[in-house]
C-alpha cells in the first residue's frame, strides 16, 4: 500500500475515474503552478473498483475547479485547511469553457483563425450539452485537447 502524506492546505480530488488524473492535472494547469502535487493512479476503491486521486498543496483560492464538473461531475472535491477537510465542494457545470474543448467543425471560424480561443457555452444544462460559441457545433466526447 502506497502512502502519501497529509497536506496542510489545498485540495484532494477523490473518485476520479481511473486513468483520467493526468488529463485533469493538465486541464487545471497544475504543471504551471509551483506547488506540490501527488498523482495517485489506480488506487483501490470499494465504490469504483479502482480510481485516481489528486492531492494538490496550494492556496485554496488559487485554483479554478469549474472545469472538473465538465470532465466528470462524480469527482469528490475535498477542501483542506490546517490539515483537515473543511468543505466538500459540489461541482456545478460551468457556463463557459475556454480552451478545453476544441471545435472540430471545419467550417468554424476557429479552424482558420488560430489565435481565437475555443469557447464552449452550456446550451442545455439537463442534457449537459456544450456548443461552440461561434458555430454552435455540439461538443463531442473526443473534443477535449
Amino acid at each position, binding site marked *: 500500500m502506497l502512502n502519501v502524506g497529509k497536506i496542510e492546505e489545498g485540495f484532494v480530488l477523490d473518485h476520479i475515474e481511473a486513468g483520467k488524473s493526468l488529463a485533469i492535472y493538465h486541464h487545471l494547469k497544475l504543471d504551471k503552478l509551483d506547488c506540490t502535487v501527488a498523482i495517485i493512479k489506480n488506487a483501490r476503491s470499494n465504490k469504483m473498483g479502482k480510481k485516481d486521486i489528486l492531492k494538490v498543496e496550494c492556496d485554496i483560492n488559487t485554483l479554478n475547479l469549474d472545469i472538473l464538473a465538465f470532465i466528470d461531475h462524480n469527482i469528490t472535491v475535498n477542501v483542506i485547511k490546517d490539515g483537515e477537510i473543511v468543505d466538500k465542494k459540489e461541482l456545478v457545470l460551468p457556463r463557459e469553457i475556454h480552451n478545453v474543448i476544441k471545435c472540430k467543425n471545419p467550417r468554424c471560424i476557429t479552424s482558420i483563425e488560430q489565435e481565437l480561443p475555443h469557447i464552449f457555452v452550456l446550451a442545455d444544462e439537463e442534457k449537459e450539452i456544450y456548443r461552440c460559441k*461561434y458555430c454552435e457545433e455540439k461538443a463531442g466526447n473526443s473534443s477535449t485537447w
Partner: protein
Amino acid sequence: MRHLMNPLDFSVEELDRLFDLANRIEADPAKYAHACDGKKLATCFYEPSTRTRLSFEAAMLNLGGQVLGFSDAGSSSAAKGESVSDTIRIISCYADICAMRHPKEGAPMVAAERSGIPVINAGDGGHQHPTQTLTDLLTIRSLKGRLGGFTIGLCGDLKFGRTVHSLINALVRYSDIRFIFISPEELKVPDYITDMLTEKDIPYEEVIRLEDCMPNLDLLYMTRVQKERFFNEEDYVRLKDFYILDKAKLSAAKKEMLVLHPLPRVNEISVEVDDDPRAVYFKQAQYGVYVRMALILTLLGIER
C-alpha cells in the same frame, strides 16, 4: 451596443417593434429618406452574394446614408492574411455599422466581440442568415396580418436548408402554428427539429408530395431541391417534379394562401405562377429592404 447574429437575438416584443417600424417605413418612405444622413454602412462580404449585399446597400441609401465595403475576400485585406478581428477594428474607424458575410461559421460573432460599431450577420456559411428570417417574418406578418394561427408548408430541401431551419426556430415562438414538411426522404427536416417540435407540443406532419397537402396550407415556403443532394440520378428524376410548383398544383390551394421563396429560384417555381396574386416572393425581396432599413435604424439607435 446591440448586434444581430441570430434571428432569436431579438425577443418577440423587440421583433414586433422592428416590424412596426418597417411597416411605417413602407407606408411613408420619404419620412425616413434622411434618417441616416452622415452615417456609413460597411458591407464586408468575404464571399459573393449580390442580392443580400445590394439589399443592405439599398436600405442604407434609402435612409440617406452612404455605403462602402468589399464584395469578395480577394479584394479585401483578408487575402493578405488579416484576421476578422483586425479587419473589424479598422472598419470601426471608417463606418457606423457593418453588415458582414463570411464563408466561415461564427466569423460575424468574432467581429462583434471586437467591434466598436454594431455588426449584422449577413450570412455565415451554413450557420445563420438572420436578415433572411426577419424578411420572411415581416412578409408573413405584413401580408397575413399576423404571425401565428396558420398552417405553413415548407417544401424542398429541408435537410440542408439554412433558411428553413431558422424560419422554423423563429416561428415556434408564436402560437397556433402547424408545420407541414414536404420533402423527399433524403432531404427530410433533421431530427433535432422534429424532436424540438414534439417537445414543445407543436403539431407537424411530413409528406412526400406537394399535392398531398396543398389545400390545407395558409403559407407555402418553397426552396430548391438540388440535384447534387441525391444519391443517384434516378431518384432525382423520379422526385424532382413533386417539388416544382406550377399552375396546376397551385389550383388546389386556398385563394388566400401565400407562396414565399428566399430566392434565387431555379426551376422549382414555374414562371407561369409569377402572375398569381398568391406568389409574393418578389414582394418578399422588397420587404427585405424595409426590414434592413428598420434594423439599421434600430441598431444605430436612431429609431426604436
